[in-house]
C-alpha cells in the first residue's frame, strides 16, 4: 500500500505482487492502456486474462462515447481479451445510466452524439432526437425560431462528427429553458489516435454549447466520480481494494484519487512521468490528485508477478 507521502513510485520488483495482492478489482482505461487504435498493447490481453484467473475482477472504464457496451465487448473479444459486456463502462452507457437513475428524466433527450449513444439511451427507455447530419437552411431569424420538441427535457452532448452550427443552435434553443438539463459525456480535448493525427474531442463540442448557453454541462465521464459510482453500484466495489490503471493524469488518475482507489499510471499513452512529477513538485492542492501512486512503462510489466 502506498504511504501518503510515497507517490509516483516506479512499480517494480516485489512491489508489483504487493500491490496486486492488496486489491480485489482492477479498473482499466482503454485507449493508451490496453489498446491503441485497433491494436492491443503487447501483453495486455494476457494481463487481463491472468488477473481474472487469479480471482480479480476486471472492469473497463472509458470516456469514449462512440461505442455501445456490446461494441466494446466485440472489440475486446477480437483483440483476445476475455471480457464481457457487463464489465465495460463507456460514457454512452454511463450517460444513459445517469439520465435514467440520477437525473431521472421524464421526457426526451436532444442528442448531439453518435448512434451508439442513441442506442444506449433508448435502451434505458428514453427517446432521443437529433442524431445524424443537420445542415443549415433559411436565415438567421429562422434559426432562433427552429421548432422545438416540447417533450425534450435534456440536451446531451457526446462525440459527434456531424456537429454543425445548426446542432449548436438547436442545443442553445433548448437550453434557453433553465429547467432543461445539460449533460456532457466528457471533456477530453482530443481523440486518442495514432501518430500525428489530432482530431478534436468531445470537450470542444461541450465547450461550444457551454459558451453559447452560458452555463456548464454536468459531465458524466472521467474524472467525474459518476463513472466509478456506476461500476461500484452494480458490483459492490470497495475503493480501498481497487486499483485504477490509466494513461491520463487529468482523467484516469484524478478519478482514482477522488474515489479513494490506488492509482497506476502506464506510459503507453498520453501522460509522462515528467508530467506527474511536475504535479507533485507544484505543491498545489488542485494538482495533487493527478499524481499517481505508481507508474509502469506498460501493463505488460505486470505479467511476471501474475505468472509467478
Amino acid at each position: 500500500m502506498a504511504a501518503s507521502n510515497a507517490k509516483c513510485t516506479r512499480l517494480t520488483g516485489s512491489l508489483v505482487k504487493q500491490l496486486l495482492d492488496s486489491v480485489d478489482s482492477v479498473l482499466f482505461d482503454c485507449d493508451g492502456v490496453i489498446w491503441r487504435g485497433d491494436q492491443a498493447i503487447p501483453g495486455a490481453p494476457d494481463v487481463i486474462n491472468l488477473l481474472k484467473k487469479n480471482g480479480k475482477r476486471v472492469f473497463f472504464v472509458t470516456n469514449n462515447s462512440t461505442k455501445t457496451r456490446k461494441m466494446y465487448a466485440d472489440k475486446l473479444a477480437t483483440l483476445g481479451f476475455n471480457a464481457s459486456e457487463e464489465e465495460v463502462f463507456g460514457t454512452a452507457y454511463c450517460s444513459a445510466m445517469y439520465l435514467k437513475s440520477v437525473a431521472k428524466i421524464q421526457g426526451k433527450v436532444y442528442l448531439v452524439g453518435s448512434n451508439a449513444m442513441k442506442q444506449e439511451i433508448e435502451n434505458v427507455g428514453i427517446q432521443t432526437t437529433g442524431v445524424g447530419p443537420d445542415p443549415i437552411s433559411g436565415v438567421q431569424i429562422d434559426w432562433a425560431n427552429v421548432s422545438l420538441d416540447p417533450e425534450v427535457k435534456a440536451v446531451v452532448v457526446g462525440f459527434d462528427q456531424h456537429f454543425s452550427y445548426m446542432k449548436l443552435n438547436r442545443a442553445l434553443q433548448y437550453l434557453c429553458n433553465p429547467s432543461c438539463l445539460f449533460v456532457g459525456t466528457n471533456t477530453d480535448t482530443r481523440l486518442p489516435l495514432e501518430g500525428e493525427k489530432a482530431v478534436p474531442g468531445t470537450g470542444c463540442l461541450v465547450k461550444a454549447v457551454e459558451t453559447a448557453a452560458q452555463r456548464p454541462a454536468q459531465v458524466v465521464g472521467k474524472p467525474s466520480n459518476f463513472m466509478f459510482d456506476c461500476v461500484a453500484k452494480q458490483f459492490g466495489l470497495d475503493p480501498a481494494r481497487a486499483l485504477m490503471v490509466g494513461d491520463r493524469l487529468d482523467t484516469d488518475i484524478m478519478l482514482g484519487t477522488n474515489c479513494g482507489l490506488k492509482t497506476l499510471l502506464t506510459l503507453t499513452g498520453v501522460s509522462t512521468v515528467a508530467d506527474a512529477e511536475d504535479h507533485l513538485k507544484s505543491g498545489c492542492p488542485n494538482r495533487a490528485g493527478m499524481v499517481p501512486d505508481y507508474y509502469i512503462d506498460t501493463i505488460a510489466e505486470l505479467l511476471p508477478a501474475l505468472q509467478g
Partner: protein
Amino acid sequence: MAGKVGTRGCKKIRGAQIRDLLDSKHNVLFDCDGVIWNGETVVAGAPEVVTLLKQQGKRVFFVTNNCTRPRENYVQKFSRLGFTDVVEEEIFSSAYCSAAYLRDVAKVQGKVFVIGCHGVQKELQDAGVPIVEDVSDGPDVSIYNFPLEPDVKAVLVGYDERFTFMKLAKACCYLKNSDCLFLATDPDPWHPLRGGRITPGSGSLTAALETASSRKATVIGKPSRFMFECIASQFDLDPARSLMIGDRLETDILFGANCGLDTMLTLTGVSTMEEAQQYRDSDASEKKDFVPDYVVETIGDFLQALED
C-alpha cells in the same frame, strides 16, 4: 474626461446634461445592434441624432462586433433604416478590422484559413488577403483523413452558420504550427435577435477551436482595443474627446474603458441598469471597467439636447 476615481458611474442623464457631455466630445462611437437598431427596426430618433451630430461638426463612427455582413451591405442597411448620410468609411465591423489586422498589423504572408460566413470572407477578399478556398470535400475525405493546404499562415474564426466538425478539425491541424496565427473576429457567445431570441455567436465557435488547439485566439472585436486602433490609424482620434455608446457592458463598455474613452450605456439593447449597478457596487476591482460613466434610456433622448 478619462481618469475617473471613486464609485463613479451609471449616471442617468438627459436634456442639458447630454448636451454638455456632447459639447465636450468631438468623436462619437456607436455600437449598432441594440443602440441604433434592433434587427430591422430602427431605434426611434437614431437617424436624426446621427445627422445632427454631424451637422454640429462631430465625427461619428459605428463599431460593431457583428461580422455577418460586409461593409457595403451595412451601408445598404443604414440607408434602408432611414440613415441618410452614413458612409462606408465610418463603419468598423469586426470582419473589416480582422482583415485590416491580417493585412496591416500581422502582415500575413501566406493564406488564411477562414471559419466564417460570407460577410467575413468578403472583407478578407476586399482587403486582398488570400484565403483558403471553401471547397466541398471529395468522397474519400473524412475527419480522420483530409488534405491540408500548404502555406496557411493564419486561422480566423468568426460567425459561421456553415460551421462543421470538419472545419474544426482542419483549423486544429493548421494551428499545430506555432507560426500560424490564431485570430477571432469577436468574443460574443450569442447574438440577440428580435423578440428576445438568441443564436450562437462567434465566441462559441472560438471556444471549440481554443479547446481543440490548446491555444488562445487573439480577439479583434470589442472589448479588445484593436478596433479602436483600427479607427485611429485612419482618423486622428483623441480618446479624451471621444465617447463610446453601447448596449452590452461586457463588450461595449469594457471596450471604452480599455481605450480610455468615456462610456455611455443605452438601455435599448442587452444590458440593464440593474446589471450596471451590480458591477458598480461589486467589490472586485476588475468589475469597475464594466461600469458605464453615463446611462440613457435611448439615444433618441439626444434629440432634445441637440435640437436646442
